[in-house]
């Protein structure tokens, strides 16, 4: 638990001092919205199109952070130190999942209002949307931390990471878009299948937290 707190604090302090990940993600998300505005040739979005644009943007922005989250550990020898220290590999995994989830939440605090303003999305759906995003973030962070620690030790890490991530994240996209679509509908939020999609997201998070917990130590061994 101590190791977990120490790694988490170290990563957050580094991020606060260097501002490497979150501002870049926010800028990326804003630019992507502009691209979608012209790519789709729409000035307002609602329903499935709004959900798709928002979630695809968050997903791609997440890839930026996921690609970077272990780079420092590898280049500055963080992996070696953790292997030498008498701590569980799982605490590194848990800390990185939390770091990624915090980055994503920070990104969404900026990106969702920008999205709502740019595309004229009503504010009524945004509160329940936050719940969807929290569960989606946990899934992104868990799978992201797992894949990132695999990819960072391979030769083509910037390539392998996204390549593994995108198919693994398809169920998150399906469930989060399914839940968000009625919330962003033109006539105000609706809750048709909301519970079912949230259950799928929660199940996904649970399964991959368990998988990560079970296999993570094998990624650190050397």
């Amino acid at each position, binding site marked *: 638990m101590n190791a977990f707190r120490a790694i988490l604090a170290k990563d957050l302090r580094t991020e606060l001092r260097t501002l490497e990940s979150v501002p870049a993600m926010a800028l990326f998300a804003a630019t992507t919205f502009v691209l979608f505005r012209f790519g789709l040739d729409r000035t307002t979005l609602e329903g499935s199109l709004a959900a798709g644009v928002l979630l695809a943007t968050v997903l791609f922005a997440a890839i930026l952070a996921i690609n970077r989250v272990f780079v420092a550990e590898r280049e500055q020898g963080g992996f070696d130190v953790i292997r030498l220290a008498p701590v569980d590999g799982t605490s590194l995994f848990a800390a990185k999942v939390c770091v990624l989830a915090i980055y994503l939440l920070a990104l969404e605090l900026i990106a969702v209002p920008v999205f709502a303003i740019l595309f004229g999305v009503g504010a009524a759906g945004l509160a329940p949307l936050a719940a969807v995003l929290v569960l989606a973030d946990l899934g992104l962070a868990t799978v992201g931390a797992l894949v990132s620690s695999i990819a960072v030790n*391979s*030769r083509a890490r910037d390539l*392998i990471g996204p390549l*593994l991530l995108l198919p693994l994240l*398809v169920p998150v996209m399906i469930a989060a878009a399914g839940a968000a679509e009625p919330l962003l509908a033109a006539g105000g939020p609706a809750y048709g299948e909301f519970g079912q999609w949230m259950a*799928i997201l929660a199940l*996904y998070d649970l*399964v*991959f937290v368990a998988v990560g917990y079970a*296999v993570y130590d094998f990624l650190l061994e050397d």
Partner: protein
Amino acid sequence: MSFKAPRILPALTVVTLAAGFILVFYFAPNDADQGFIQKIFYLHVPLAVCALVGFMVAAVQAILHLRSGDPGWDARSYVSIHISVILGVAVLITGSIWARASWGKWFVWDEPTLVSFLIVFLLYCTYYPLRYAIEDRERQARYASVFAITAGAFVPLNFLAVRLAESLVHPRVFATADGGLTPKMTVTFLVCLAGMALLWQTLVRFELAAKSTRARLARLRRALDQDAVAGGSRIAPVPRRASGAG
């Protein structure tokens, strides 16, 4: 790690598959609805079942590899995924042909099984670039096993999510694949399924044998080279190419 090529298994596979296809064409009745084209079902569905079961088998073998550290299990897991991906290509091709014949399109997005299979197939295709991007042998095996386990957990989740996504848009009867089969069709299907499972196993065994033979050959070559360099042997230093021919 040493695997031998199977002897009886290939013959059994040929007999079962041949019997299966004889049943398909001379015993099973034509489908009342779809006619002759429905017979591709006896090829397509067993292929898909074997590929998916193969992925799950690979995940179990990967768990055994991580628990025991035995590189043989990693080799088995790798070959299971490899053969299943090859069957996966055949699944997508036969599925496309079937979709074209019965729905008029090569790919149908509201057929959840087809879409889920495509996603799973794309995921397992990334196994190869991942594996070969890691140079250290031992680490490669460990990371590949972690991937195989993660992907194995992903397969059922993905089927669940895709099925729910489609069933909302297009209400469908949750009939199982053999829900509307007559007894004759069921028998034929089961024989085809058994034949395909045997084919999967045969291919896996041959690939494993080929891999272990290649590894042994490389070891022998290295030993020979070392002998020649040490000069302790009476064999004259043999050029690499000549030793391969002999």
